[in-house]
């Protein structure tokens, strides 16, 4: 029965998405938007059931520790995004809202498929589906720059994912070489079972291609150029979902193959690679954040940096993996709340330029406090989770005697913190030249962001109390 639950979690949003496509526009009145809220709640309910029942799953779908947590994360973020979307799009015409909701549901379905996929190729298909489905979402604003961002997004990500497919073929081949005869079962647990005996060379080559492929999707350094454009052009709730949920799914792919390689004879082959990719992406993020004038691009580059930290952590392994685990959860919570706050900023200042914004503290206290707390949490303030995750990663790195890597990591983290803090001060305190219409009277939504920050705070306190 519980396998059925797994299929339901994936099938529900996909079918609802298709149905919303088919509903004629005039019938899709405003009340029907509550349907989407209902579906999001149902999806959250299903995920909680799954976490409760822990179904074993069949060859195509299964429940795994990290998969389950990511699914819970994705559904909570999706629920908050849908609520924020309703408020954010209240001045758009019904057609775009209908399309956006449809693509969002397909996006949710694809992502839940990735977290639950047991078969490696099904996992690849799901990731490919997420790319195809999220491309039109980026295009919802129908401006020239968003079109350009969509084109870059779809081309670069499909190339990356094609490389990932090649990598998966190599991994499967290294399995096929040792059992030529009977039918291959390409489930992850099967791979881990046979890992020690798999062919070493093809496995390493496979890991390289998977790392480059899913690395593009995850936004690691040399392949990250699509991420700032896509996340800054997409509407804020969508970029919150992209940043919070999608990057984690891409990381899940790398983590699964890295786990297989870890268990095989190749041992810690990928560690050196992951650490160098992590540090490179933090370096690129620092360079492009220093004199940035667009706060959405700034947050996108901070996502690149955090993904770099996650890659750096997995590369170190050992105790740092716990830090990576915490960092994943807290980064998506805090980053999506920050992206929603930028939605408010966009409504208040009507432009993405930092130089054209200021005096947020007087214009709208609510979004000012959320922005300040969010940035403090993102930067690693103590009660929030990222402080603990960075602490774990530093402890892991020092115990591995990676001296110059840690110092490089800390220096760059410090520079990024300073830029983020100075930008927050500039936005909230600097005087605003009175040109243009500054109207903060519209009722802007801040409680979804507060809810997400609260989750992160509660988890942080849980670690803190656990440790006293």
């Amino acid at each position: 029965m519980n396998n059925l639950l797994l299929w339901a979690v994936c099938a529900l949003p996909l079918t609802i998405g298709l149905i919303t496509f088919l509903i004629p526009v005039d019938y899709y009145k405003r009340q029907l938007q509550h349907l989407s809220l209902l579906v999001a709640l149902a999806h959250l309910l299903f995920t909680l059931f799954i976490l409760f029942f822990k179904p074993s799953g069949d060859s195509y779908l299964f429940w795994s520790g990290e998969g389950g947590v990511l699914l819970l994360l994705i559904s909570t973020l999706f629920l908050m995004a849908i609520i924020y979307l309703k408020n954010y799009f209240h001045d758009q015409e019904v057609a775009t809202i209908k399309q956006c909701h449809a693509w969002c549901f397909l996006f949710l379905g694809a992502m839940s498929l990735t977290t639950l996929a047991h078969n490696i190729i099904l996992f690849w298909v799901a990731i490919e589906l997420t790319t195809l489905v999220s491309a039109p979402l980026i295009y919802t604003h129908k401006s020239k720059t968003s079109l350009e961002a969509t084109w870059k997004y779809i081309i670069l990500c499909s190339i990356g994912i094609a490389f990932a497919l090649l990598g998966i073929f190599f991994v499967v081949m290294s399995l096929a070489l040792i059992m030529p005869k009977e039918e291959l079962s390409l489930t992850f647990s099967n791979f881990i079972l046979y890992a020690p005996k798999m062919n070493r060379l093809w496995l390493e080559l496979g890991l390289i291609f998977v790392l480059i492929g899913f690395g593009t999707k995850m936004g690691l350094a040399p392949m990250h150029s699509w991420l700032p454009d896509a996340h800054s052009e997409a509407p804020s709730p969508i970029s919150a979902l992209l940043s919070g949920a999608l990057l984690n799914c891409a990381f899940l792919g790398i983590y699964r193959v890295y786990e297989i390689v870890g268990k095989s004879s190749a041992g810690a082959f990928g560690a050196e690679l992951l650490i160098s990719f992590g540090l490179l992406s933090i370096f690129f993020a620092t360079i492009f954040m220093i004199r940035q004038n667009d706060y959405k691009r700034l947050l996108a580059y901070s996502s690149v940096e955090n993904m770099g930290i996650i890659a750096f952590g997995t590369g170190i392994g050992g105790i740092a993996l716990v830090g990576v685990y915490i960092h994943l959860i807290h980064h998506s919570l805090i980053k999506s709340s920050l992206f929603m706050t930028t939605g408010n900023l966009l409504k208040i200042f009507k432009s993405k330029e930092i130089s054209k914004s200021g005096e947020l503290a007087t214009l709208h206290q609510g979004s000012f406090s959320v922005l300040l707390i969010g940035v403090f949490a993102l930067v690693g303030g103590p009660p929030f989770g990222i402080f603990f995750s960075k602490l774990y990663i530093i402890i892991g790195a020092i115990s591995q005697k990676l001296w110059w890597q840690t110092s490089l990591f800390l220096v760059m983290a410090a520079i990024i913190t300073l830029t983020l803090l100075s930008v927050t001060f500039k936005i909230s305190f600097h005087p605003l030249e009175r040109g243009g219409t500054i109207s903060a009277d519209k009722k802007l939504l801040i409680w979804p962001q507060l809810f997400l920050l609260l989750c992160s705070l509660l988890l942080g306190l849980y670690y803190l109390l656990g440790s006293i």
Partner: protein
Amino acid sequence: MSLYDAYIGLLSLILLTCLASLSMQRLRPLIKTVALQGIAVTMTTLLYQQNVHFLLPFIMIIVKGVLIPMLLLYTLKKVSIKSEGKPIVGFHASVLLGILFLFMVIHYSHDKLSKLLADQSFSFSVAVVTIACGLFLMMARRKALTQVVGYLIMDNGIYLMGALFLKNIPFVLEFAILLDLLVAVMVMGIILHKINETFNSIDTTSLATLKDRWHE
């Protein structure tokens, strides 16, 4: 004509389509060559793998040979421009590069990787060349349509590499990969229409406004 000669013939046909795509300026023949290459790739998988589900090659030929080219031709009809115009890397230069790359790959796979690939070293090098040619097309051409075609060629190359080494992937997964390819091309087609409407040209160099400016 033994089975092996037919197999070598098909592989060389794929190589030819690759080099041809590098040299073509007008888009219509380019799409036709990609269709031919798709069919050739499915025929090689049919020849190579014995116990393949009877329905799979039939569907692949329909999708790769007929459905995708029709879609691309339809978009081409909507778009006014018919030819590549001035590419970033000239046509003759790309063909020469293609040949040079082919020699390098064959030499490398024959003596270095021979023990690893045993009998399939030639087909491995053909697959690598097709992937490289697909990537090159995307990097060296200005028109968005050629980038989609490049993506298709790269996909054929990857599928060829997969088919050579993996004897028995379950049918459903093959079908899912194919479905993804189809949906990818459809979405790219839609976006191509939008680019054409807003920029009234499908030249990707005009799509270059988004970058990081150094704000003092």
